[in-house]
């Protein structure tokens, strides 16, 4: 019996050492993933001021023509410009590094880009006779600003899908570069 205690002690020390080394594996792996995640977050944070909004610009032209047999024909041509920005807030994004089977994954869920702001301005008005007011086929005076707003709304609707796709493409290219930089596989999705 006098040998049992020393033997048991040795066994217990050995078991503790083995268990200790077993437990040590997971924190190291987690540590690496967390370290990459921190680096990715830090990179995104430093790039955030440049992270892309799409700038879509629209030119608008209202033209009104009224033939005149005796006098010169009447022309009224007004040009406006409009800038429309598309993007999203990074605060609404979900970004994390998760462990994959062969390669760690950069998981990115971004909100669907949307119109952020619209800016429209008059650029020029060309007119044949100073007192001429643009009239429609029924002889009614046309509200040019209302026409411009309707035209801009029609155009932004027409090109909305294209603009959103371009904004998504800019983000996709950024996160593809980012994931390649850190040796991660990208899993990117946009939430509706």
């Amino acid at each position, binding site marked *: 019996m006098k040998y049992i205690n020393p033997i048991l002690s040795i066994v217990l020390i050995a078991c503790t050492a083995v268990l200790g080394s077993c437990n040590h594996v997971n924190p190291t792996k987690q540590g690496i993933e967390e370290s*990459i995640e921190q680096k990715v977050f830090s990179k995104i944070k430093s790039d955030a001021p440049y992270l892309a909004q799409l700038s879509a610009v629209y030119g608008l032209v209202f033209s009104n023509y009224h033939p005149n047999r005796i006098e010169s024909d009447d022309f009224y041509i007004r040009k406006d410009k409009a800038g429309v920005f598309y993007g999203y807030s990074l605060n609404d994004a979900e970004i994390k590094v998760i462990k994959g089977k062969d390669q760690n994954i950069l998981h990115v869920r971004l909100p669907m880009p949307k119109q952020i702001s619209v800016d429209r301005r008059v650029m020029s008005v060309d007119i044949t006779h100073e007192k001429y007011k643009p009239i429609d086929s029924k002889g009614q005076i046309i509200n040019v600003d209302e026409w411009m707003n309707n035209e801009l709304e029609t155009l932004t609707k027409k090109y909305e899908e294209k*603009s959103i796709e371009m904004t998504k493409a800019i983000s996709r290219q950024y996160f593809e570069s980012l994931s390649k930089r850190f040796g991660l596989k990208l899993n990117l999705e946009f939430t509706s």
Partner: protein
Amino acid sequence: MKKILLIVLCLGIVLIFWIYHSVSKAGSKGGETQQSVEFMEYMPIDKLFTAFAYVPIIRYERDYLKRDIYNRFYNHDEKKKVIIGYCYREYDVGIGYDHPTDSFDVLQKIACQNLYKELPEPVILSINPISSEVVGKYSRTDCDNLDLDDSGTRKSQQLILKQLKEDGQWNVIVENSQKALASFIRVYCP
């Protein structure tokens, strides 16, 4: 006999833990390889579209008013001419960078120092004429010639760029595009 059994039992426990430890270590190989993740190889980009523009181009034909005989025959003051017709064409224009990563090293130096305004200006990458109209006294042929591809260049491209600059929209496009380009390049900053 009891002592021997106890020793065997303890050695058995040690053996089981040793096998478990070895298996765990082998299974964690994938995690350990992640330590060599930081490499500086960049992803080449063919085209980076950074802006979109809908640009109407209007070209005028001007002449004196019918009753303005004085200027028509004697004074010839160009400022007195008025619009007698126009050519109107609309374009979808894609703007951005063509092979932006070709001069990666130069761009990286600029972008990594937060000097994004020193990055190159974007260029017109695509032009798609979507409609045209001729009103009053303007030649249809002259109007169509704006998009005549003469030895790889067409007048409309110069006019679109001129129009965007005159309207002040080009500055907005340039700043936004330089920021977008900077964001890609900055990914690879040390």
